[in-house]
């Protein structure tokens, strides 16, 4: 039944309370009435949904506010559709290899339209699954944009309806950053990764701007599926925050895969012609400071900005709430996801730390256990988070880079093990790519603090190693593990 609120509930929730009062859902209330929940989640993405569902399991009366589709970035314009596209691109690579393995698959054509239809259908199914999961958990879904009111008790307004809870979670995620037309004339003629998933046809000529993992993945997918692709990066390599081995190797692999790489370059302006976009690029010679070259790419039908992401906080009106943000607008939280305002929490991409679905999910669940199960110490551990980049071939990385390890431990205390080889799959193919691996070890006991790799199968290899590294595995533990033959992953336990 609807609970119209005038009374004040305790801010601290005790377990006993949950069974006592049944407050479920709400109906339309007049403007002055506020619907009260135990837990109000703003943002129906990975983190918000995980937190909400866990809270509901712990018998908290929960609502989720979502302005768009359930599932957030990951499901709609991130991990999931990205991996579908990557899988399609992997098939392109397999098709190269079919002849070498004895199959006569020839005159192959690619239909972006078929793929997009299938991908969209799959995403819709996932949206529905998320909706069903919320309904099953008796979590109310509120459709619309959330905005904090100026009332003394934190209150959220959605389409004129007001909601509050002693615990409000902001998990609104982020969105791709864009260049303004002031910064780069014609910049708005381009799209972002969000727009990439709306493309109805395979672009013939693509220009991707950026050196982060999204730029690398997008450029890789486009190029492998057959779009002539240029990648514009400001410095000399991609993935500069990754271990230098990965950065260097990935830069090389992009070029091996036919991506036209523009190093030390920036887009100066974009203009529209009858043959598509014309992208003007300035390239600086890193040696000679004032030496600039200007080049153009013509006939571009897809200019994709992948220059970073920014938090979704603009419409929330958190300024008046006393929730502090950093200089880039990320909500500042402590290790327990507390913001600077009591009773308000933040997690996931909106906080700008480890922008990854599983991190947000884990943080959301930990928070729910803390708030509704009384587990005071329940918090997310942000150390040693494994990450995969779905480049061609994929990258897997966990822990410290070599440089980071040296910085914290001193060069004399860091030992590096490296290997590179041709995966057996390529033993009989004319198309080849190397697999590179690196272990970063620290101290006398050679504790493994970092593991980095790029190569076929690295995406599926990483998870188990991440468990071991989190457990504090040493190089000796790696050596004591018997290999699985023939795999690529066995090289990690046979390194010398």
């Amino acid at each position, binding site marked *: 039944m609807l609970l119209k609120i005038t009374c004040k509930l305790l801010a601290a929730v005790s377990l006993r309370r949950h069974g006592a009062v049944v407050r479920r859902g709400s109906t339309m209330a007049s403007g002055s009435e506020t619907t009260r929940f135990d837990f109000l989640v703003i943002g129906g993405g990975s983190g918000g949904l995980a937190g909400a569902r866990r809270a509901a399991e712990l018998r908290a009366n929960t609502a989720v506010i979502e302005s768009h589709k359930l599932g957030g970035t*990951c499901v709609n314009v991130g*991990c*999931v559709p990205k991996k579908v596209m990557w*899988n*399609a691109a992997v098939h392109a690579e397999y*098709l190269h290899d*079919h*002849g070498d*393995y*004895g*199959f006569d*698959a020839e*005159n*192959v054509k690619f*239909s972006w339209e*078929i793929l997009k239809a299938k991908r969209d259908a*799959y995403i819709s199914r*996932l949206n529905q699954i998320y909706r069903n*999961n919320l309904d099953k958990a008796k979590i109310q879904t509120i459709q619309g944009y959330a905005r904090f009111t100026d009332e003394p008790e934190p209150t959220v307004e959605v389409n004129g309806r007001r909601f509050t809870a002693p615990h409000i979670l902001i998990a609104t995620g982020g969105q791709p950053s864009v260049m303004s037309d002031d910064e780069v004339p014609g910049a708005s003629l381009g799209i972002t990764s969000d727009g990439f998933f709306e493309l109805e046809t395979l672009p013939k000529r693509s220009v991707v701007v950026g050196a982060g993992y999204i730029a690398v993945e997008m450029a890789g997918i486009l190029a492998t599926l057959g779009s002539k692709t240029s990648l514009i990066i400001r410095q000399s390599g991609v993935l500069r925050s990754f271990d230098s081995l990965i950065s260097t190797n990935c830069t090389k692999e992009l070029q091996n895969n036919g991506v036209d790489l523009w190093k030390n370059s920036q887009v100066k302006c974009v203009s529209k012609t009858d043959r598509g976009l014309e992208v003007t690029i300035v390239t600086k010679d890193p040696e000679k400071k004032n030496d600039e070259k200007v080049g153009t790419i013509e006939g571009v039908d897809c200019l994709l900005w992948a220059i970073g992401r920014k938090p979704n906080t603009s419409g929330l009106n958190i300024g008046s709430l006393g929730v502090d943000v950093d200089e880039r607008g990320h909500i500042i939280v402590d290790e327990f996801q507390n913001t600077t305002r009591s009773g308000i929490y933040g997690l996931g991409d909106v906080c700008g730390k480890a922008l*990854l679905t*599983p991190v947000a*999910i884990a943080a959301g669940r930990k928070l729910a256990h803390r708030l509704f199960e009384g587990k005071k110490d329940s918090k997310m*551990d942000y150390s040693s988070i*494994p*990450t*995969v980049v779905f480049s061609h071939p994929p990258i897997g990385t966990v822990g410290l880079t070599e440089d980071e390890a040296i910085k914290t431990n001193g060069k004399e205390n860091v030992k590096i093990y490296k*290997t*590179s*080889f*041709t*995966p*057996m799959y390529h*033993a*009989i193919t004319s198309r080849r790519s190397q697999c590179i691996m690196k272990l970063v070890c620290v101290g006398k006991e050679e504790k493994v603090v970092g593991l980095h790799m790029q190569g076929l199968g690295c*995406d*599926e*290899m*990483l*998870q*188990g*190693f*991440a*468990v*071991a590294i*989190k*457990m504090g*595995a040493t190089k000796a*533990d790696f050596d*004591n*593990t*018997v*290999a*699985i*033959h*023939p*795999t*690529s*992953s*066995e090289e*990690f336990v046979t390194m010398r």
Partner: protein
Amino acid sequence: MLYCHTINSLSFKSQDCFQFLLGFTTPPNNNSVKPHFSCPAFTTQYCLAGKCDYDLVVIGGGSGGLACSKEAAQLGQKVAVLDYVEPSAKGKTRWGLGGTCVNVGCIPKKLMHQAALLGAAVKDARKYGWQIPGTVCHDWTTMAEAIQNHVKSLNWGHRVQLQDKKVKYLNLKGSLVDECTVRGVSKAGKETILTAKNIVIATGGRPKYPTNIPGAMEHGITSDDIFWLKKSPGKTLVVGASYVALECAGFLTGIGLDTTVMVRSIALRGFDRQMAGLVTDYMEAYGTRFAWNSVPKRVDKLSSGALQVTWTDTETGCEHKDCYDSVLWAVGRAPETKTLGLDKLGVQLNEATRKIVVGADESTSVPNIFAFGDISEGRPELTPTAIKAGKLLARRLAGQSTELMNYDNVATTVFTPLEYGCVGLSEEEAERRHGEEGVEVYHAFYRPLEFTVAERDASQCYIKVICERGGDQKILGLHFTGPNAGEVIQGFSLSFQCGATYPQLLQTVGIHPTCAEEVVKTHITKRSGFDPTVTGC
């Protein structure tokens, strides 16, 4: 894999180099001709006086033998390795240095498995928007030649490595004369005698034929032949249900051949029963035929050239017949102990298996003689265990270490169409050791993202984490069926080796979207009876 890297850096053609090295049967120590003594007592003293030809002679140039000999040589020992391949019974197939793994095992098997995966990928690709005209056919010869050439390059790579590491390679069939003397016989019958302080036997095993089935050996082939066939085996009957049988049947099905597996009782004996069932269920759905509870009776070659197999269904007692182009026996492997001269020296063998009885330090019942790998009793028949055991043995023999091989926690992967990787105990074994109440099983049926758009059935993609129920929930066994199981399970086997507990698994952040992340997300216990199907992200 290591080898591939080495090979790539070689720019010359392997065939030419083969010619150069063939016929290397002269005794070692070219600069000093030494008399050879056959009196055991004398040779022992001779060796103790440091006057043996070698510190170590290894009989068998397979994964284990090569690893052992190279390691010993790197530790400054003077080493020779003898390798000789008896042609296979039916196909008279021969191969080069490297043993089962390289020539007639892991390597060609995995490559044919890759070919089969590509066959399935063609079907998936269509769903991913790739328009591939007509039906896609597979040409055995193209695949087999490519694989055979790769294997030959590996043979060559092994030779180069031996040469680089100063291990004397002798293409001789070795047998024991006494505890420090080995006789090597060349293909032409020429004899060479070598003395050594220590002798290591690592001659591995070969596929068995059934003894009481008329026509079995005459008309059937084994895994020693299948990878070296010049033309497609065509419609094939695989007899047996070991991992070798299922892997062969799997890749044959995958490249489009009509394939039947004949199973006497159960598949994948020794593995977790539930997982074995998932593996064969997937194969049946994938197109492999299974003749369960069936025992072959005879094989006859018809005038058409077809092989007519007669078998009995042990449940109904009925007799059946069908014709095949090839019959592949995968009914087990036997150790290569017969011609080693072991009986004469009193090297103890297991009565039933005829394998060499060994201690924890790979010692046999005769001093100075050691054995490991597939030929030794009770050891896993796996390349990596042989390699590791060989290296450790070499270090001990060189006096550099006392470390023993740890045969526990060995992970393995079966490269069937749906790969199956595991480490630790099966559910049955865990319950036997800890009691049903002492074991908690977390499990999940998951759907690989690559299967969704491809509209592939994922009913057999399953994960099972078997833990101690009490205490800190130490993991006892971990099982995974799905794409890339081999790559998935290795890291988990490392954490298993480190003594991972279930909470430690859960504390690790998942990698999204992968199949491997489902392992760290398992949370439904079997005991609860809740639906273990994963939904959403």
